[in-house]
């Protein structure tokens, strides 16, 4: 593997290998917490924190961890950081903690964290792994916010809980039900992938011209 720079990791995490639309990881929570922007946002922040610190820790321990028990070690590390987030929210942001309820615990089972620890942090240095965690977390959060934006706007007529659609607006109840999540996420994945393919085609065409 060639030496990775922060910029490469940034582009990969947010765009080229976006965890949700390209790697198709973390779909569970992307469906579950996107009925409101605020839920999606806090979930995203929690995930960024956990992914970054888990990757950092896994990377620090990577030379000492016996190969065949590395999964166990990763799960232990991830759980520890999730519990830290949970305790912090309970102590200092009780209202947010209440609103999220079971979602914080769900971060543990998010495949993005495990996936990035296994694919990236096992092979790379601590600092770049930490950055990889942050950028993958941001990539995930961005997709969540796009989906939540559409769902909350159409389903509740609000954004971050502030009414924006006016009183004449009829809420599309389907958008806040589970099917709405499936439709929206599929549309976003489709849209982003189409965009990316087009860009790649035009990029390669330009390269061919340059030759």
């Amino acid at each position, binding site marked *: 593997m060639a030496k990775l720079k922060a910029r490469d990791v940034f582009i990969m995490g947010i765009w080229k290998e976006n965890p949700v639309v390209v790697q198709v990881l973390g779909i569970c929570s992307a469906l579950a917490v996107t*009925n409101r922007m605020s839920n999606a946002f806090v979930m995203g922040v929690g995930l960024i924190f956990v992914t970054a610190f888990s990757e950092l820790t896994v990377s620090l*321990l990577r030379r000492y961890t016996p190969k065949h028990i590395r999964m166990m*070690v990763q799960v232990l590390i991830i759980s*520890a950081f999730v519990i830290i987030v949970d305790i912090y929210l309970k102590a200092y942001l009780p209202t947010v903690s209440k609103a999220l309820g079971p979602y914080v615990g769900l971060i543990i089972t998010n495949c993005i964290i495990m996936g990035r620890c296994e694919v990236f942090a096992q092979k790379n240095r601590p600092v770049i792994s930490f950055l990889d965690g942050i950028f993958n977390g941001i990539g995930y959060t961005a997709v969540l916010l796009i989906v939540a934006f559409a769902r909350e706007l159409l389903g509740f007529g609000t954004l971050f809980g502030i009414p924006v659609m006016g009183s004449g607006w009829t809420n599309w109840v389907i958008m806040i039900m589970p099917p709405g999540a499936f439709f929206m996420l599929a549309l976003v994945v489709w849209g982003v992938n189409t965009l990316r393919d087009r860009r790649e085609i035009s990029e390669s065409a330009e390269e061919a011209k340059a030759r």
Partner: protein
Amino acid sequence: MTEGRDKAKRPLQETYYYPVIFMVVVTVVFISVLAYLNDSTRETIKRAGEIKERESILYVLGIENDSSFDGILAAYDEQVIEEDYGYVAQKTGDVALFFSGSGLWGEMEGFISISGDMKTLEGLTFTTHSETPGLGGRIDELWFREQFRGVALDVAEGGPLVYRPEPGGNVDAISGATATSKAVLKILNPFLRDKIDELKGGE
């Protein structure tokens, strides 16, 4: 950390006891950190829980406060008398009662308050529940809770609380969350009937 795998470590890594020791050490380290954090924030969490509870009691009794921690505590100390059957508002004589029961997805807990003469319902709020956010979870929204203020407690068959448009309906259910709405009344109606009997009998 940067040089390649240390050749001297290889044999140690491959011994049968190394993974066990490694796992034990890592576990102990992480658990210690968590235990420390848990211990150092326990008081804060407990206090936040108590304040939250008092805020709920003030809300159902209709006592104004500025929602700050100190404001809640001061208002509670001044205006609420803790009796063995419930929390009594000094000014109005309303009684706040703690209730619990099964919602759609899990335990629901909260407070409900009734007037001193037990003729009207004065307020309702939930402290814990695990209903679906955005659907059943809307029982936390103000419009839903506020409609329970001032409902006449007519302990007739099936009452006192009935959803519109049923005959004798006095509150609205949440559209898209029928099961949760039903669960709320299934908890509250028997609770109210029993409590009113109990309080009336006790006087």
